[in-house]
């Protein structure tokens, strides 16, 4: 028991930042991300003996947090996106990928994605998982991962084009 708790504590120390980051990216809310990470740890600890005996527990922890994020999002305990006090800093240029635009564009794009597509984006492009590993974490096929990725990128492309199109003067921040 002492060994199990020591190993678990070491795992938490090593991975808690990444867990919170994943929860944050999946929900768009840092505090909610911490709550998710804490809940994931509770669930992981419940199966720690079996999970750690099977190998690296990190993929299993990732699966838990993806599952929890999807569940919490469905329950709508909290909104996935928190209203911002500061408005995004739009530039006046027509290049949708001006440096000042990119973060706001990506944030808006992520906020509008369905949970599954958002999870695919986070796992593949924030945590750099392969298609196979992403499918493993999401418990789906690689084909689903590819199709969800394509849909998400198409939506980003559409968002970018909408942002770059000429807008009414009063609608743009100067």
């Amino acid at each position: 028991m002492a060994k199990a708790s020591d190993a678990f504590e070491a795992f938490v120390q090593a991975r808690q930042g990444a867990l919170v980051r994943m929860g944050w990216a999946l929900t768009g809310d840092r505090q909610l991300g911490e709550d998710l990470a804490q809940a994931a740890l509770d669930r992981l600890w419940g199966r720690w003996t079996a999970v750690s005996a099977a190998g690296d527990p990190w993929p299993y922890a990732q699966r838990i947090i993806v599952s929890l994020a999807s569940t919490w999002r469905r329950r709508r305990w909290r909104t996935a996106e928190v209203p911002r006090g500061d408005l995004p800093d739009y530039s006046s240029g027509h290049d949708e990928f001006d440096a000042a635009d990119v973060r706001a564009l990506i944030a808006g794009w992520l906020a509008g994605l369905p949970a599954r597509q958002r999870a695919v984006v986070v796992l593949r492009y924030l945590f750099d998982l392969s298609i196979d590993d992403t499918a493993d974490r999401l418990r789906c096929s690689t084909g689903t991962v590819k199709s969800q990725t394509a849909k998400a990128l198409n939506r980003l492309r559409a968002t970018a084009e909408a942002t770059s199109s000429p807008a009414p003067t009063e609608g743009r921040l100067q």
Partner: protein
Amino acid sequence: MNDQELVDRVRPALGELFPEPADVALSLPARPPANPRRRASVLLVVACMLALAAGIAALRWHSSAAIGDHPPAGVTGRSHALPTPKIVDHRLAAPFSLSDGQLQLSPPPAGVRPVVSAADALAIVRGQHDLPKGRPSSVFLASLTSYARSTTIDPSTAALVPDTTREPVWAVLTAGVRVIAFGVGVIPRSGAPDAEESPAPLRYGREDQLVMLDATTGAVISGIWQTMPDRQPSTVAQTPDPGVKTQSHSGP
């Protein structure tokens, strides 16, 4: 902009939007982790108890009286067996049909009283069909509408007119009756003595049987059986429609 260019923009932006926080201090859960061995042993005990309960229930069923108020276990245990009738107090409680709707059984009218008793109905069926005595049967009262022999169409409604509409009828349902499977006969070779041909071995199958009697006269109206797929002999399986078959249509 192609996908790769998009991804090249997305990756660094995501990293900037969601940097790994360094000031995180998650708390460790207090309760001990679950012991998978203990969980497996608990599941094993539960499975054993369920198996024991199922065995006791099966023994009780087979040792019960010959006239049951519930469908025999064999009827419900097979996916292709006869439909399971809903019976309350020896009366059909919900309608059901057989043989693609050719035979329709519905609950009998309230207050109808059969002349023939359930025990007599069972005795008639057992006498005519030589059902094994140890096999429990379910006897229930119902109303029968049959289209099996109907060839008349009502011109006003363009609907088939039933050839038999009778109430009340006793339905005797017996599951898993062991029967000899009739196969293809052995044809002697030309010029060879018959004695050299080995006879085809007898094969057995099991059937669910449902026999309906007129509850007023005791006459057998029709019988229906279905061969159980798990014991279905190959020669039966090769028939075009191995499903429910009408056995007989005797009676007035």
